[in-house]
């Protein structure tokens, strides 16, 4: 009964999660084809690797933001957290702690900060937008206190390992997907979407609402800080401001990927596809060779159309 009853359900449910993402997939597919047509060199293994390295930070923060948004919250401190992660990585790696110590320090930083934010939101019930806005100031200030200007040290071997010519980053994307599957298989993962969809219903069904929320913020914090570590490796340094634009990128990629501001709705694949579209747009715009001003217009139109398409279809089916 156990496996035979579950198996037939798995794929239909997985398939249903693509609902509403059709337009994004089509637009994304079209841009992949366009990119290859404009720059066939991208198909070389080295070029794919470089592209994935450019996309990876946005993908990571999009996933981090998605986790928080699934609980019905939002995180405005993503960018500063990435900066702080890079600063901590670049200032601990030269100490006796070494690379291993730096990785642990960054993880602890992310988990610790995420738990604090989670406690304010889940236990004290402050609005996430206020808590994370306040947190963004604290984190930004801390990063500037540690490194008042870009610098620090990242072991070149570490940089080469993560963001050199090895396909490490591609492996990391796969690891991220597998960890997500693992997370979703735990009660905390099930609770993640349940509390965002209907917190009261989740509570009555025995979901630990507080623990699910706090854990979500902690996981998100770790992802954000690790993005900082990755950026430090990619750039070979720490920079107290490098993550700033990523807050908006993270939210935009998540929303593009069908993650709802209201919580309970969204998928990892959506966040990844959304961030991938944003990243690929940058390169396609480059190779299309349009004037700058036209690029902004085209970029904006593509994003609006991608978000609007599924809604248009939905509206039509409602009226029918």
């Amino acid at each position: 009964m156990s496996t035979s009853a579950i198996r037939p359900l798995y794929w239909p449910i997985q398939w249903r999660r693509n609902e509403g993402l059709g337009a994004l997939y089509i637009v994304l597919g079209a841009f992949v084809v366009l990119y290859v047509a404009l720059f066939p060199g991208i198909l070389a293994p080295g070029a794919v690797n470089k592209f994935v390295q450019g996309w990876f930070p946005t993908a990571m923060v999009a996933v981090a933001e998605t986790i928080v948004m699934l609980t019905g919250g939002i995180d405005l401190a993503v960018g500063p957290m990435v900066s702080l992660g890079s600063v901590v990585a670049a200032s601990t790696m030269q100490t006796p702690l070494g690379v291993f110590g730096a990785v642990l320090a960054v993880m602890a930083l992310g988990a610790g900060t995420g738990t604090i934010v989670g406690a304010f939101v889940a236990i004290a019930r402050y609005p996430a937008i206020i808590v994370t806005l306040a947190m963004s100031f604290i984190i930004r200030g801390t990063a500037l206190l540690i490194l008042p200007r870009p610098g620090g040290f990242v072991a070149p071997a570490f940089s080469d390992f993560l963001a050199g010519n090895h396909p490490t980053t591609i492996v990391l994307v796969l690891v991220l997907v597998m960890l997500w599957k693992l997370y979703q298989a735990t009660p905390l993962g099930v609770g993640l979407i349940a509390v965002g969809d209907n917190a009261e219903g989740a509570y009555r069904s025995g979901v630990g609402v507080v623990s699910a929320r706090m854990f979500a913020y902690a996981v998100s914090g770790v992802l954000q800080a690790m993005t900082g570590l990755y950026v430090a490796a990619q750039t070979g340094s720490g920079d107290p401001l490098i993550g700033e634009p990523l807050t908006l990128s993270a939210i935009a990629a998540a929303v593009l990927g069908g993650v709802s501001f209201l919580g309970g709705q969204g998928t990892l694949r959506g966040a990844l596809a959304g961030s991938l579209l944003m990243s690929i747009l940058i390169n396609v715009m480059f190779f299309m060779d349009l004037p700058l001003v036209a690029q902004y217009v085209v970029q904006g139109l593509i994003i609006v159309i991608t978000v609007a398409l599924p809604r248009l279809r939905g509206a039509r089916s409602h009226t029918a």
Partner: protein
Amino acid sequence: MSGMRLRLPLASLLLAGLALMQIAGTTPAAAAANCVQGTHKPPYKLGWANIYSVPTWMKETTGTIEKMADDLKKQGLVDKLTITDAQGNANTQIQQIQSMIDARLDAIIVDAGSATALDRVIADACSKGIVVANFDSLVDTNELTTKIDTDQVMWGKLAAEWLVQQLHGKGKIIVLNGPAGISVSDDRRKGAEPVFKANPGITILAETNTPYNAAPAQEAVTNLLFRYPEIDGIWSQGGALSAGAVTAFEKQGRKIGPITGENYRQFLEMWKAKHLTAWATQQPNWLAAFAVYASVRALQGADIPRYIDVPLPIITADNLDSYLARAKDFPADGYIYSPYDTKMFDDLIARSLKK
């Protein structure tokens, strides 16, 4: 065996000869600029990797790049200029420079969004034989063709010396900086520090960190005016900051003491109209045009020094009018930069090569 023995002294002789030539300041005829490798045939393809295209300073800067590229196009030296805008995002700038490498451009002009973030991608471009010229906001790596800049530490030092002199070594001042975490702001402030330290009569009442824009500076200075009834002088490290400060003093009806600044048009006009005691220098926008010119020269095989130090053009009461006379050629919220031509660029390259 004998061949080995013969070759070794020959090699050391050659090395000694090269060293001698460098000491004498002459360069070997075949000397090429850093990163130049492989075949680069004119007309060249250039890329301008802009960090942020919106501020007026940046628009004027891009203007000097386009003009230089157009001039070189007419000479058959430039084929195409590709411009990207990272919209303030250093990660995007990395991606765009990577695309320029992929597109096999001949040269990349960079104003860095972060002093360190672009190091690896720029070194990568250099290793692939692409000329990289960096100006204004510099990167840390030296694996590029050339860095072209004024001395930002000197900027701060000269401004501080002028202010201390105006105050006769005694007075209460406020310090207006650019945003925290930006290398340029940090360097200018660093340059001023030893001067203030050497003059214990100077008291720094407060420091501000704002973007290099007039409105936030005006707000910050207004707050300081409420707090401090007596402010003798202003060490400002940006032209728009100075303009904001002057407006703030005026709105409060307070008398403004000596103030430093930049070639920001509004500030220069206020200086003239309100008879301020002021001093200004500038980050010339044409550093960008210079970067284009130096890149093309490097591609042609000329020796281009790794660092080209551009002297800061100073504006005082004596030459203020010569700047204001050209004001109409610049945007109202723009920067009136000093005149330039390729002859000047050649001289600056030659001067830096001798160093």
